[in-house]
């Protein structure tokens, strides 16, 4: 939104621009303040927005008012840079930062309230000066700057290459900062695209912007640094583990999902346990007993408490590569009551190459009489479209034989993906179709556990639910 044409004309006549100090005289009195540009949303386009000397922004009706530009007192708007000097500590781990965008990389123009992307990626670090005490972020690159909802698979390719560059540098680990909207998708994409990973990669973001004293990204960065210095050569999503500022969790890149729109602990590992808990109580019972590696001490010092042992260890002999071939023609369909299977025909016509079918419960779709999805799915498979099935329950897995519905579905030639998250299935299907052309090879790859996307043993604690003891103290 901007000011109305009449207001713009009024301002132009007086040679007044946003940032100028003006005197406003209207029927409510005479007031002085700095003229601000109109915010993007809300308010009336004929109201002038002023910042008064007491710091408040207010709106005055411009119609019928006289304006006067006060001399020599304009302020520069949108100039909110912050200095950052790279850490020069030598006894802390050297890490790389690959900054993309998102809330963690924003700054507020305090004059206007507008939110902007940081112009310098290093500015992120200026928000967390204490990071210098635990890590030396000595390499920074920013391959692109986008809010994550605007990213596509080409950005994943660029990002994977950037991360692999850093994995091949003398850094001990890599931190990727990212918007939280598709952060989990990106973590899955990196998990598949980075082959022969030698060092940790922590993907992190923020649910509260850096302008706030309650900025959660500061601790997320600290925990990410600690994870990046650990011996876990995996891609992990490192974010708050609870609503409190007490510990972080390193989630499995392929089994992680954003489960809340706004909470700090929005990210959760589904159908499995996270890799590690970072920080929190010192006498934690979750420190994994089997840590024979040279980084075990480092893990301990950094308070990275592993919750599982099946991760790939740091291995400097490995030479990571970015294997980024990706087929973007993949669609995602969710079975819904009364939803029309005709859309699958449409996708086949549109030459889509893969479909993720998010079925009910154990992987079901309607199979009875004229509402049956089976013929159209059969047609898709016969036309060479790869159809994979995941569950919209998220927790638990699809099963090929329990009910008739999934048996019928299995007979069409779809690939049932056990407990793989639908979003991970989407990313993996794009990646597999980028590599394989024959149905057999595609099936084999889809069902191969490439980056911990399957968990064949589900434990009681893998499903959160209501825990009576946690609710009241």
């Amino acid at each position: 939104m901007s000011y109305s044409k009449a207001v713009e004309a009024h301002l132009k006549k007086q040679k007044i621009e946003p940032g100028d100090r003006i005197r406003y005289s209207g029927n409510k009195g005479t007031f002085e303040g700095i003229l601000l540009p109109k915010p993007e949303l809300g308010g009336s386009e004929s109201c002038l927005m002023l910042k008064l000397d007491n710091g408040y922004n207010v709106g005055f009706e411009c119609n019928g008012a006289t304006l006067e530009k006060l001399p020599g007192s304009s302020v520069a708007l949108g100039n909110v840079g912050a200095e950052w000097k790279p850490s020069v500590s030598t006894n802390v781990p050297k890490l790389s930062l690959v900054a993309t965008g998102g809330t963690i990389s924003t700054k507020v123009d305090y004059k206007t309230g507008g939110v902007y992307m940081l112009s310098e990626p290093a500015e992120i670090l200026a928000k967390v000066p204490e990071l210098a005490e635990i890590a030396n972020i000595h390499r920074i690159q920013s391959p692109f700057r986008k809010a994550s909802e605007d990213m596509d698979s080409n950005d994943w390719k660029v990002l994977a290459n950037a991360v692999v560059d850093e994995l091949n540098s003398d850094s001990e680990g890599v931190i990727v900062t990212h918007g939280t909207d598709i952060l989990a998708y990106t973590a899955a994409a990196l998990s598949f695209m980075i082959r022969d990973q030698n060092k940790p990669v922590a993907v992190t973001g923020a649910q509260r912007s850096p302008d706030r004293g309650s900025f959660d990204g500061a601790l997320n960065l600290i925990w990410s640094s600690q994870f990046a210095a650990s011996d876990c050569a995996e891609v992990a999503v490192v974010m708050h583990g609870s609503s409190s500022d007490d510990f972080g969790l390193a989630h499995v890149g392929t089994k992680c999902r954003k489960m809340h729109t706004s909470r700090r602990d929005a990210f959760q590992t589904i159908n499995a346990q996270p890799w590690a808990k970072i920080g929190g109580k010192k006498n934690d019972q979750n420190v994994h007993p089997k840590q024979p590696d040279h980084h075990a001490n480092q893990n301990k010092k950094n308070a990275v408490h592993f919750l599982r042992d099946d991760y790939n260890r740091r291995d400097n002999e490995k030479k990571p590569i970015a294997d980024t071939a990706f087929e973007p023609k993949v669609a995602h369909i969710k079975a819904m009551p009364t939803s029309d299977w005709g859309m699958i025909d449409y996708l086949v016509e549109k030459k889509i190459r893969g479909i993720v079918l998010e079925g009910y419960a154990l992987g079901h779709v309607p199979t009875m009489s004229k509402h049956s999805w089976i013929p159209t799915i059969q047609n898709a498979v016969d036309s060479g479209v790869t159809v994979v099935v995941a569950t919209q329950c998220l927790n638990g897995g699809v099963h090929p034989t329990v009910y008739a519905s999934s048996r019928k579905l299995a007979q069409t030639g779809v690939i049932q993906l056990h407990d793989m998250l639908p979003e991970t299935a989407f990313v993996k299907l794009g990646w597999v179709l980028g590599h394989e052309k024959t149905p057999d090879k595609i099936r084999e790859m889809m069902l191969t556990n490439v980056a911990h996307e399957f968990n064949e043993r589900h434990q009681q604690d893998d499903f959160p639910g209501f825990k009576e003891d946690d609710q009241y103290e």
Partner: protein
Amino acid sequence: MEKEKTGLEKTNLQKERLDLQKLGFKSGIEIHQRLATREKLFCRCPAAIQDEAPVSGTLLRKLRAVAGELGVVDPAAAFEAARHKTFTYQLIAENACLVEQDEEPPAGLNKQALNMALTVSKMLNAQALDEIHVMRKMVADGSATSAFQRTALVALNGRIQTSLGDVAIPTICIEEESSGIVSRESDSVIYRLDRLGIPLIEIATDASLQSGAHVAETAEKIGRLLRSAGFAQRGLGTIRQDINVSIAGGTRVEIKGAQQLEDLAALAENEALRQHHLLQIAAELKRRGVNNTQTDAQKNAQTGAEHRTQENPHGVGKVAFGKPHGVSHHFKKAKSFLSQPIAEGKAVAMAIKLLFCKGLLGREIMPNHRFGTELSDYAKSKTGIKGIIHCDEDPTKYGLTPEDFKLISKELDCIEDDGWAIVVADELNAVKALHAVFDRCYTLEIPKETRKAEGQVSHFMRPLPGAARMYPETDVLPVVVTGAHVDGLELPKTTEERIANYIAKGLAPDMADRLVKSSEWELFDQLTKGSGGTNSTNAADGTNAKNADAKTVAWLLLEVKPTLRRAGVDVNIPQERMAAVLRLFSQGYITRAAVPDVLTLVAKEPNEHDAQKLAKAANLLRIRGTDLEKLCREHQNSFPDIIKRYRLQVDAGELKGLLEKKT
């Protein structure tokens, strides 16, 4: 000797009559009143809180100081953040949701609260803004989980009448209430989240208030206006007054959180007194040889610099922070509450010399508040230590002797008018605290401070926030306020109009005045709705009046209710049950004299909704008409006899009339 000296000064202080005008006294107030809305300002939690609501969980937060809109960190925010505090929040499921936890974006601005603020603005002849923008005001003391308080300027340029003329009200805001403190430790604070986000109206006057009494009067007027409008929440802590005070040569100091109206006058004038004495102390320090500026004191505190020595008794003009000196040995042998931690090695006693300060540290600058208290407040708030000991105190307070004090002076190479301060704490904090003492001591200008009211004096809380603390709340859209909307807001009656109305309803002027000042007027209005004039006053037959007359209602609320409350009766009786008792009276079923007893019965039997049944069971129904005539015959028409035996059941007026008719 020190004690005598202090005592003497105190007497002088009490005698001192400050000529406020001559001092250049300037004061303004900000009234913060919780609004009686249904919901909070930015979420749909109930705005009325219950202290006994259970804690449903806890939340832990570390808050950071961030650069404000000018790219600089606000001094108040930096000060709080430097304390590395951890904040714990008690979750109260009934009154707080994810918005208070800073885990969900705010909902829109509460329209009811906005309309109340706009109505108050109209009552104060202020100009409502055409567009209202919600701002974030940074607060790093942990009282808000988001580290900011949402606030919006609603109206400008109002005024209120006082006995000394109109006082300008430049701004009227609505903002979020902060969280309430449960407990405070040196490195952590526990808050409850139920209070956070309750709508507050903030009404600020300009700095034209002329005396303590004027401050109190203006605060009372504004408070009364809010209550009379029916917009004010009731109860302890629902209204708070911040006072701004400065004198010529002094500085603007903000005193927060005064809750008692009767303390306001003293608080304002004591602050003027404090600034006046601090200026005198600064002048005396300069006279004795100190030539520091604030920055010098701070700079030298970091680097250490020249000292005044025995050889150079007049000093070098600049005072530097000397090396702290261990004085634990004096406490080890003493019988003092400080001896044990020192003996156990848990604390040390560290001292620094305070050049030229002897006699000044003990000088009283407000009642029971010495210059030493000021230094101590700074040390406490920066480190969490319990307090300091200085040379102008009574050594026996700490189990020491005057001889010990002399020895300490000697060990610190004090000469002439040199003083000293001691801190007992762990070494790191002790040194940090002594730096704070030193820096404050030689800051010769009066620091810009936010102070906390404690009774009639105030204590240092944090530096006064700068302009760097406000920026727009981007999650909430601006609200357009049209002239038509403001015009359409119905104005509540003013106190004066209300008093006049009550008098017209039949109350005596003093009763009307008492009623508007009490918390009962709303109930009074409800109970007397529809009853007009005085014609139904205690009519002998009493059967026509649908509603109780105003006098009886006022008597019930202002006399009977307090009496019963003092007698231990729970008089929080729902309005409709109260009305039922009044109806029994106005319709002639009970006498006026029986009203307190019937009300007591109703209070004690909350499940019995038939008041008449209760009265009947207790034999409290009125005897009237033919029954009364019968009673007269039985008692030989003896007025005293009947009244003595049937005081609660017989209306004296009716009885008298009946007997007169017979004779």
